[in-house]
């Protein structure tokens, strides 16, 4: 239905944005859950430090985050040059866009999941352990299902953020059509030239529609989970 609406390059941007947002969300979710759990439940020496690092992308202007990513993960960067040797390239690649989006969305994801973990009644986890479940099994069978609403919330925040992320992405991986040009970068480009507003708005609408669809789906999922716990 949008066929007439968008040119092939724009379609490419839509597809790429979806891919970037999905991959960023899915790939960072396990790490997000782990970090949230560590922050919520463990007391360890680097606790505050880790917490601070997680929040950094929120505090820093996106261009700064993008710049730091560029000098770290760029092919000349400390990490980037090492990763390149083992075949992983983030720089100027869609994977880099996903990395940038994931990092920008990480504080939001972690906070949502952490809040859910903190709300779990640890007496239930204790009950699980008395029934023979190891810490890991307790996590998998009790904690995880109970924090699903938080995970869904964290994931949708991350997805929405990834769909809208622009500053860090364009600074890190540039704006190469078909490779790193996401919807927000395309929108930005249109806004840079006279007469581009209409085109930009079309893309904005597409981006909003996608993100809202994901949002509504997540609401349904979350409500379903909540209803199950409240007793079907």
């Amino acid at each position, binding site marked *: 239905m949008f066929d007439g609406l968008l040119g092939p390059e724009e379609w490419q941007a839509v597809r790429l944005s979806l891919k970037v947002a999905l991959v960023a969300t899915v790939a960072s979710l396990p790490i997000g859950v782990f970090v949230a759990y560590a922050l919520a439940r463990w007391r360890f020496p680097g606790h505050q430090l880790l917490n601070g690092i997680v929040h950094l992308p929120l505090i820093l202007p996106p261009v700064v985050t993008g710049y730091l990513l560029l000098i770290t993960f760029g092919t000349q960067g400390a990490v980037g040059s090492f990763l390149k040797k083992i075949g992983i390239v983030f720089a100027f690649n869609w994977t880099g866009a996903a990395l940038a989006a994931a990092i920008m969305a990480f504080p939001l994801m972690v906070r949502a999941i952490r809040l859910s973990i903190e709300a779990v009644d640890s007496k*239930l986890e*204790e009950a699980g*352990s*008395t*029934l*023979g*479940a*190891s810490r890991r*099994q307790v996590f998998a069978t*009790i904690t995880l299902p109970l924090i699903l609403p938080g995970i869904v919330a964290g994931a949708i925040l991350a997805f929405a953020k990834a769909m809208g992320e622009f500053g860090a992405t364009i600074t890190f991986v540039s704006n190469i059509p078909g490779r790193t040009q996401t919807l927000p970068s395309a929108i930005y480009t249109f806004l840079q030239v006279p007469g581009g507003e209409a085109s930009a708005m079309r893309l904005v609408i597409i981006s909003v529609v996608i993100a809202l669809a994901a949002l509504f789906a997540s609401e349904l999922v979350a409500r379903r989970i909540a209803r199950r716990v409240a007793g079907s």
Partner: protein
Amino acid sequence: MTLALELRHSFPSFELDASFEVPKGVTVLFGRSGSGKTTIANAVAGLFKPDFGRIVLDGQVLMDSTRRVFLPPHKRRLGYIFQEGRLFPHMTVRQNLAYGGRFAPRQEAVENMERLIGLLGIEHLMDRRPALLSGGEKQRVAIGRAILASPRIVIADEPLAALDEQRKGEILPLFEKLRDELAVPILYVTHSPAEVARLATTVVAMEHGKVARVGPPAEVLSDMQVMPLGVRAAGSMIVARVAAHHDDGITELDANGVSLFLPRLDKRPGENIRVRIPAQDVLLMRSRPERISALNVIAGTVVEIRAGEGPGAMVSLKTDAGLLLARVTKRSVAALELAPGVVCHAVVKTVAIAPEDVGH
């Protein structure tokens, strides 16, 4: 299996200092609200780490603070029935029940699942989630969940408090079975003297975080001075053999030659059982009564009389069936001229001996 335990811990306004050693069977923790029962249960389960403590179950050290040994709860193979249920809200009743089995090493289940579900009366609740259960239903599921985990030790914290008398009577045999047939040690917290009498192998009476008294129930319950249990809990324990079942619904017992008549029991003739005879249900007469509705009349000799602070006195009577306790008024002691050595007759109504007072 024996349980040896030594715990010391200071809460801001509560001091726990308990140690006892009990033989296999059911150890009942008995004591007033706030006396430290749940705290001890939690320590045994590994959910509470006292400042100082050593817990040994059948030779295995569960914890030893001086040697820094602490076996985590999931390795203790517990079946803990919590005072507050703690069902998993995201699982159905069925999933809650199955939970323990998922982690227990494969072995014969302690209980047949179907039978247990029927006994607990939760067949119709299997696909419901805990949020929709009534208080007693939750408690019954919690009992089932703990039992089905094939535990090596059961901890039951007031498991029957929320249940009606009838259901209590149905579930109590389950604990007896665990104790007798499966030899699972049980730590059982209760406020009910009847449950103590029926289940306990050993009673641990708690008072303000300290152990007030430890001993077999026959002793503790017969002890006229054990106040923590309340004077109404006093009673004697008689060991008897099932002699016959009569057609009129009465079971005859043989207690060392003395016949006892009880409402029908679900025991085979020849089986040995224990009967608790509450002291306050025993009536004393100087002469053997004629034409009385009570079927049990046991002759005996007064051994001791202890006057309480109130109007009552506790009379212990040596009979062929064993020591009997009778709680009477001081006025009656005077009227009947009771004194050590005096021969008299104890009268016990058949129906006064309730099913929950009979164990085996």
